[in-house]
């Protein structure tokens, strides 16, 4: 009993003042992921990395939009989205106070415009993603003309790309080329 009393006196008060004073949080704490729609290119890498299906991506071809959404009620704060994002558009914060009055408030959305194929006119990817890919590929070009051609090529949907490739090969007449080579 004496030992116990001594211990109690030695320790003093252990209770923290939270929520009347801020809680102490370690560096590197994994809290609410924050999304930056300006940097986001709607590539959906995060949605496939998310183990809890908290992140989703829905395409509405009629409206011409692609909607990215996070449900904080489903999020497990693992940070796989942060690791997989190519543009650093999502990162975890130290915020852990996520209570809301309505369930819907746990969902945050960002709507992106779709890009339409230069060739067939069908929507096939988010406009920002197409622009991002075109810019990266064009940076390897050796002349402004080539850069423009690469950028234009990026605006063609995969389906049309395949078709155009076949047509281009047919135009170059591979049979004749082979015969000439022989």
């Amino acid at each position: 009993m004496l030992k116990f009393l001594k211990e109690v006196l030695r320790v003093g008060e252990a209770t923290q003042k939270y929520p009347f004073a801020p809680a102490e949080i370690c560096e590197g704490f994994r809290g609410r992921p924050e999304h930056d729609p300006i940097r986001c290119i709607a590539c959906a890498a995060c949605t496939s990395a998310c183990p809890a299906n908290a992140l989703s991506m829905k395409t509405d071809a009629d409206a011409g939009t692609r909607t990215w959404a996070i449900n904080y009620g489903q999020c497990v704060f693992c940070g796989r989205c942060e690791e997989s994002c190519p543009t650093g558009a999502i990162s975890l914060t130290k915020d852990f106070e996520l209570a809301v009055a309505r369930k819907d408030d746990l969902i945050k959305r960002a709507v992106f415009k779709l890009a339409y194929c230069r060739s067939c006119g069908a929507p096939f990817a988010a406009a920002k993603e197409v622009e991002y890919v075109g810019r990266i590929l064009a940076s390897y070009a050796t002349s402004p003309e080539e850069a423009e051609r690469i950028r234009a090529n990026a605006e063609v949907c995969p389906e049309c790309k395949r078709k155009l490739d076949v047509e281009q090969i047919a135009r170059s007449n591979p049979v004749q080329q082979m015969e000439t080579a022989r």
Partner: protein
Amino acid sequence: MTGSKDFRIGQIYITALNEKMPDAVLDTSWQTDNQVTVTVKLNSLPDAVATLYYEHDGWLSTMVGNDERPLNGNYGLYYVLSMEGAEKCHVIVHAEIPEDSPEFPSVTPKVPAAVWYEREVRDMLGLQPIGLPDERRLVLPDDWPEGLYPLRKDTMDYRFRPQPTTDNETYKFVNDSKVETTVVPLGPLHITSDEPGHFRLFVDGEDIIDADYRMFYVHRGMEKLAETRMGYNEVTFLADRVCGICGYAHSVAYASSVENALGIQVPARGQAIRAILLETERLHSHLLNLGLVCHFTGFDSGFMQFFRVREKTMTLAELLTGARKTYAMNLIGGVRRDILAEQRLTTLKLIGELRGEVKRLVDMLLSTPNFGGRVNGIGRLDPKIARDYSPVGPVVRGSGHRRDTRADHPFAGYKLVDMPVHTQTGCDVLSRTLIRVEEFFDSIAIIEKLLSDTPTGPILTEDFAYVPHKFALGYTEAPRGEDMHWSMTGDNQKLYRWRCRASTYNNWPVLRYMLRGNTISDAPLIVGSIDPCYSCTDRVTIVDVKKARAKTVSYKEMERYCRERSDSPLK
């Protein structure tokens, strides 16, 4: 991966099986250097398991039922034995069951430890164990339709919820007492508890004559979920959620099962970090149990002191992983976050403080006059019963058996440390408590050792290829004992089968024997000494066999009686 010819641990057991039972062994294959799967004829299954279990120091770690009809036309059974004799390794006894006759000879009459596994495989895969004395369901509820077996590949989607077939509880609780007893039901449900269980104590006056219990009221279907909805890398995060206390142990066990199956060498630094985090988890878990022992013996101020100190271990977890629970640190191939110099220093400082604080608190607890009388000789687990049922962790070590996965089958960073194993011979609540105290200080020493010479280099490897239909075991020693996972890869970046066995699963079957011969005021203390999740046991039904009268007592009331030991709820 097949181990190289000259380095195959476990060959002596195969030789022994071949000598004792000629022609029974059909095939042997090594998944790693110390994991061998031996396929036997179906009729030889009970003898093969019993031979390894009782003649070669084997313990039953888990049993896996697998619907392999799409692969080879058969069901597969895998009895996993942890061999702790001459050559320490895992021997997995495998038998195939043809599709047209889904039954197999039960191992339980020879090895009682198999009882829950065989009841479960009957529920989940519809494989009939012939000769199994216990015909009750284990996992499926009473209102689940006959003939719907959730883990068969062709039966149901993981989201399917069948219509209930009955409104009545049809489960029969077993009472082996020779005298008349009263029934004390404990549980089953409180709407807010996540893991309810129902306890039925058969009492004569205040004495427990026998006990039976039922779990799985909230079966989460994680194995099916993992197999159908998630990629194999994402399952590490699901495994984190198997348990709210020792989830990281499951995550490591799962990750290493896939790493073993695919032959992935996890970098040494990643292995060491896994061990450091596992010990961090043990620190907080053991402090939680020590606090609860205080609580159940009516020493609530001690409980508060242990929980005050426990907060330091939670800070430690937050510092090292970024979360107080569900660390989310594992990927297949290693860990996601390194331990930096500054974190290392803070960790060393924190565990130094913990060592001193906990030492003072333990001295205080053990010198509290009525503590010894309350835990000494209570909840005795006979070493022979322990041998028959393969319990794990502090429960089995408290009954004198030297079993610890960290020492027997070193995994993760435990290869780098000398692993002491503590045993006690009291077989009671006190023994189990003392073992947790000793292991707490070991954990601190292990963390210090691993932090002082951590291997250098990468923490994660991505240099591997996913190969279909490879399988292996992964295991850890969680605070409650061995966690055992068995995974088989699919052909779609998912798992074909994930079998996850938590430590308490192996400890439930012996609880009945621990309760017998004690008084009902000790019941919460005894249940607490196996350290299950506390939300499990909400209410008790007490049946007085002599007066043939049943009474339901709320768990709060039982707990109060355990602490105060006055005003019996039975009067």
